[in-house]
């Protein structure tokens, strides 16, 4: 490139940046609130569109949307430093540890001020979502990006294996049977060419297996990692490594691509059935158009839990010390609302607009006619039914969940890799988590004795 051209380009860039800096002075009299969110990509664009819709819907508040990497960590540090965003997009498990650290503003006050009882407000949601937002008797956050999970199966592979492509496994035993029929090996080398099911694909909900087997991770205030049901679930996980051979599985799985790529185990037909979330359809359309698949709930386990599913949600919360909590609430309220009479795409607002664009199920019980009938996800009714299921489960509500999950994942990995027995691994997990839990609860009790109601001191302008 010629020097002159370069000089022109550089000066243009500098000029641009200066203009931008100069533009930052806010000339309108709106209240500007900041919103940190982790999403980029499809989810991020949908959230931006929802923010835009909110900004257009009224003329008092302008939400400034900012995609921040590891937004939850940064929110916590900024809150500790006394300079938090007004609204933060968090993960479900953040609610409990952040609340224990007094880093969130309770939302009950706002709900009541708007003329609702907390029960009435939360009653609008499917119970699993309502439940995950309240903790120790207080509402700390509300859902923004909900999700449910189901068993996705590849119909073409079912047909090829001589199974009815329209009939997914109903029980755990069927899952195992179908999996065997759907598994192909190289007759000479014994190498795996295709497998019916693998517990570690994608392996994100390692803690879900105990719950699926009707076990529990918490019983009231007790850590219950070591229970017969939990052990049975990990026995089942281990059975796959024993049945198909650890080395064979290792070399087979090393060829899997990222879950959101054409080379993913499910899209490339290497694994016939996976437990995945409502979002998978977005990626199927993008990377494996034409993939013929169905979705159903998690198969029933020996103890007879039917319609089991793992529900999860990203949530919006107001960090403690937010400069504009009232305006932040207005935005959260908008995202939690819908237009129940929406007949056209343009009528969608708030939660339904967001979930429509993200192609996910709405966590609210009431769906508008348009949302119900024109939802872009072909299997949305199934996901709606799963979210409504009494066996929809979510993570236990404890402030040390991140550590608990890390330990449970260690159990999963140790068991799957045949390095330890489920019983020994769970014993270790039980001891570690129990120790941390005792310390955590002791600290909380001591803090409470010292400073009875930290949340009440939340600054309000």
């Amino acid at each position, binding site marked *: *490139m010629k020097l002159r051209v*370069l000089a022109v*380009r*550089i000066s243009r*860039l*500098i000029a*641009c*940046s*200066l203009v*931008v*800096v100069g*533009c*930052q002075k806010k000339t309108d009299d709106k209240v500007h609130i*900041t*919103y940190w969110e982790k999403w980029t990509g499809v989810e991020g664009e949908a959230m*931006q569109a929802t*923010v*835009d819709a909110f*900004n*257009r819907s009224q003329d008092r508040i*302008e*939400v*400034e*949307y*900012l995609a921040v*990497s590891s937004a939850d960590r*940064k929110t916590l*540090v*900024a809150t*500790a*430093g*006394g*300079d938090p965003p007004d609204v933060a997009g968090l993960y479900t498990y953040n609610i409990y540890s952040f609340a224990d650290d007094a880093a969130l503003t309770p939302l009950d006050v706002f709900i009541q001020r708007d003329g609702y009882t907390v029960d009435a407000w939360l009653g609008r949601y499917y119970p699993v979502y309502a439940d995950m937002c309240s903790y120790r008797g207080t509402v700390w956050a509300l859902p923004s990006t909900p999700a449910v999970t189901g068993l996705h199966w*590849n119909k*073409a*592979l079912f047909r090829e294996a001589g199974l009815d492509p329209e009939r997914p496994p109903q029980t755990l035993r069927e899952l195992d049977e179908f999996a065997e029929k759907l598994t192909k090996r190289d007759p000479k080398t014994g190498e795996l060419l295709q497998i019916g099911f693998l517990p570690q694909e994608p392996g994100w909900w390692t803690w879900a297996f105990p719950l699926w087997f009707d076990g529990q991770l918490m019983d009231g205030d007790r850590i219950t990692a070591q229970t017969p049901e939990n052990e049975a679930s990990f026995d089942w996980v281990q059975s796959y490594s024993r049945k198909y051979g650890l080395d064979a599985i290792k070399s087979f799985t090393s060829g899997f691509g990222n879950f959101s790529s*054409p080379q993913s185990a499910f*899209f*490339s*037909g290497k694994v016939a059935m996976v437990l995945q979330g409502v979002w998978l359809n977005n990626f199927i359309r993008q990377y*494996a158009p*034409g*993939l*013929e*698949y169905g979705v159903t709930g998690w198969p029933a386990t020996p103890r007879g839990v039917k319609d089991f599913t793992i529900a999860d949600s990203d949530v919006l919360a107001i960090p403690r010390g937010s400069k504009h909590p009232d305006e932040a609430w207005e935005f959260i309220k908008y995202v939690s609302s819908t237009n129940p009479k929406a007949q056209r795409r343009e009528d969608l607002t708030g939660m339904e607009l967001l979930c429509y664009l993200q192609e996910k199920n709405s966590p609210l019980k009431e769906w508008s006619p348009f949302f119900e009938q024109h939802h872009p996800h072909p299997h949305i009714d199934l996901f709606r039914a799963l979210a409504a299921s009494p066996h929809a489960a979510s993570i236990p509500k404890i402030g040390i969940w991140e550590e608990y999950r890390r330990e449970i994942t260690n159990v999963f990995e140790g068991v799957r890799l045949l390095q330890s027995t489920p019983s020994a691994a769970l014993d270790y997990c039980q001891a570690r988590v129990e120790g941390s839990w005792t310390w955590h609860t002791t600290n909380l009790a001591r803090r409470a004795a010292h400073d009875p109601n930290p949340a009440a001191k939340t600054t309000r302008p």
Partner: protein
Amino acid sequence: MQPKTPFGRILVYVLLVAGSAVFLFPFIWLLVTSLKPIEQTMIMPPTWIPRAYTATVQGQRIEVTRDFLVERKSVLIVVDDGPQKGQRLLLPETDLDGQHGRARLQVFENGLQQAHDYPVTVVRVVEPGAWHVTERSDTKVRQHELGWDVVPEADIDAKASPRWDNYPKALATMGGRDLEEVEGSMAGRTSGISQDTHVGFVVFLTNTIIVCALGVLGAVLSNAVVAYGLAKVKWKGRDALFAMTLATMMVPFPVLMVPLYGVFKSLGLVGSLYPLWVPAFFGSAFNIFLMRQFFLTIPDELGEAARIDGCTEWGIFWRIILPLSRPVLAVVALFHFLSAWNDFMGPLLYLTRKHTFTLALALQNYQSQHGGVQWQYLMAASAVLIIPIIVLFFFTQKTFIKGIATTGIKG
């Protein structure tokens, strides 16, 4: 020491040159990478000169990327039927059934990768040693929109072509904006834009300069005054204070980190640039020590004479000692500038929003966002952080080296 023999002299030179090469190569690698187009950063063996390749693709002479060398005898075909109908493909000759005009193609069908035979037309045969080339484009990202061809090596023109525009591009996207948005090919959003969305290099540079300039000013003023009080004023408690000053140099930063954060939090200054330069105005043990050592070498008689003439203590400091201390002031100023420019942990602790970031933090943030894929931009941005320091060093080399040597010998 002087090598005695010519052999010794040669050996010393060989070692010096070899050592310099090892120390210089990373810098050269940095600059070379920062001037390459992206596809030339990811090739093995690496090239040392950024080049532009030109070749004839589908009848047009355009800039191309060299994708791979065709190693087996191959054929260029057009598919006549099946899911890939109409596409041009390059196949190994062995996959072609020439007699029947059919070829074995990999297709994605019902979620399965499968091989089937389809009718094809052979365009031409490609001998090994030709290059598969693709149209080079910064804007068209979709692979199938790009033209490609297979051409003999001799038909490719290669000329050295450093991509200087990597620099403005890296700086413009450093704040997290997309390149498309910067160049105007993508419309910028108008609603709900956060102050942090449009931050660019200029903001980071300004922040860094504020922290460096105010910090240097504070360090020079405060340390000189304090060191004077410890070196030239005789007062009760002076030695105790000096001993304490030396003792604090032992305390590792992590011990101070948490309470310091609390101090600035209670002052409401977390998230601003203040915590990064305000402390400089209150002296630092190391610099006080350095300056005191220097002041001790100035004879007391100078001060005494002035005192007899009725000069105040401040007057002595300001008019007599300070003018004599330029060398040590320069050392302190330089060291402080360098540490403020290079500081990462301070900004990481105190800054939460992009419009307050310094260059060092912005560079780390840039890298963590882009996951280290666009090495040419990352290297360009790093070079921008390094070059001012190197330029500064060349102008002040003597002061620098002397300052460092002093710390070691006298310490």
